[in-house]
């Protein structure tokens, strides 16, 4: 998961310190510069993160954290790369939260409420408490997509759960023990496989790949030396954002 490894050199590089905050990582106190994110603070304190870290930009969902602030008994959650530290904060990483991951052949499934309930019967235990949505670091309306799942509205599940990072924080707090992110994943897959129109351009491109249309180009890049490749990468054309 993560190893504690004192990297003294990096600490020296941060000097001078300025204002510091005292935080408690898995119960152990550390004085770290104010203004860091939880992720940066952990690294500053000497943790080398192997799991529980990913894109560092709030996209991948790998760095779920639970914490308590000074003077507040409530457990709070967030992404370590997006949440700032506060003086007196107690925290720990949750790189993964256990949830059953069913195996299925998506082509053999019917896109229906019955299919979702077959794999996730605990869906029926939802009491609409909305705790899942309250903890979602993506601000998704998780309870609404679970309601849509119960109603067999797979398109809606797919739409509402689209930005899910699978961080598992919803699962960690659900009194009904629903595995929300797997439900959303299955619904999106069912939607993609059975409900939305097939993209014609995708079919064409897959056909081109199968016929070996890109082999020559790939071979060309594979035989290049690293320096040439890096040069080409630096010169690549990026599509402008809309």
């Amino acid at each position, binding site marked *: 998961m993560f190893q504690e490894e004192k990297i003294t050199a990096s600490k020296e590089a941060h000097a001078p310190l300025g204002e510091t905050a005292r935080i408690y990582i898995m119960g152990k106190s550390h004085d770290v510069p104010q203004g860091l994110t939880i992720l940066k603070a952990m690294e500053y304190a000497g943790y080398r993160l192997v799991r529980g870290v990913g894109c560092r930009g709030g996209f991948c969902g790998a760095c779920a954290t639970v914490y308590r602030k000074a003077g507040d008994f409530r457990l709070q959650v967030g992404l370590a790369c997006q949440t700032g530290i506060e003086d007196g904060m107690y925290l720990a990483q949750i790189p993964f939260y256990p949830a059953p991951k069913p195996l299925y052949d998506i082509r053999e499934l019917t896109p229906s409420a019955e299919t979702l309930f077959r794999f996730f019967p605990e869906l029926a235990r*939802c*009491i*609409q*408490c*909305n705790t899942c949505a309250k903890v979602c670091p993506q601000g998704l309306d998780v309870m609404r997509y679970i309601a849509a799942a119960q109603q067999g509205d797979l398109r809606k599940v797919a739409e509402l759960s689209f930005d899910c990072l699978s961080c598992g924080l919803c699962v960690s707090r659900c*009194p009904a023990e629903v595995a929300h992110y797997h439900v959303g994943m299955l619904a999106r897959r069912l939607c993609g496989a059975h409900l939305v129109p097939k993209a014609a351009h995708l079919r064409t491109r897959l056909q081109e790949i199968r016929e070996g249309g890109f082999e020559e180009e790939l071979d060309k890049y594979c035989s290049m030396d690293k320096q040439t490749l890096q040069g080409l990468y630096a010169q690549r054309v990026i599509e402008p954002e809309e």
Partner: protein
Amino acid sequence: MVIKPAAVRSGRGDEEGNVVDQEKKTLGYYPGCELRTRAQALDISARKACESLGITLQELKDWTCCGGLVAQVKDNYMALLAPARVLLQAHTQGFNELATLCAFCFNTLRRASFFLERHPEARRKLATFLEVEMLPQVRVLHLLEVLRDRVGFDRIRAAVRRPLQGLRVAPYYGCLLLRPAQEISLDDPEEPTLMEGLLKALGCDVVDFRSRTDCCGSYHIVTNQGVAAQCAQVILHSAVDAKADFLVASCPVCQFNLDWSQAGHGNTGVPVVYFPQLLALALGEPAETLGFDERGAAMLREGS
């Protein structure tokens, strides 16, 4: 007053021998947390008294808190969250009344509304959890009630374009439309007339049907299928005995149990339909648009 040492009797129980029997003078004993802390006198004195009486209080090993107040609380509102949220949805979308069709939903929502109306503390706590100022009062209605009280059976009779003459129907209420009577207050829980009134207005022959307020077995179907099958078979045979062409329900759970039982525990051939299917049919909607199953559609063809 001088308290003299009492003559110690041998440790006997009461006349029935309930407290201490002759053979067994040792009682399992649970002191509780207070007796360990503030109320040690209670513990110590009881032990001494019992010792004198020949009773041994043998303290449980590794005992834990009895749960105290928590076990007694009546304000566990978690189960009300879901219906309260629905009532809130109705209110925020501009409705202070909400019509329902499924008897299960109707029962759940109407009872929640009934409870919340009478428990301001529950309303306040749920509002806090739901992050709203106030939990609104929303009246939960069943469509049958709307048809009876708002539209009126006479107006329905006048609107019928295809009277269902000669159709013998058994109105089936089950439990949830009627009970508990005080909370639901839709109709007489034992002798209801609501569905009869509607079906008569549609021109149907309403049969006298003894199982009309019996339970369909409900969620026993999940854990105790024999019970569910038996409940359903009794209802179906009661409809057969009354020579009904259709059994008319308002609840999807009843409908499911009845048809499930027909599929696996004895097919009576009686189609189970929902009341609005017959209502829409009588009002002139084409039968094929109303979702009748094969059995129901066949019965309609035979009848016409």
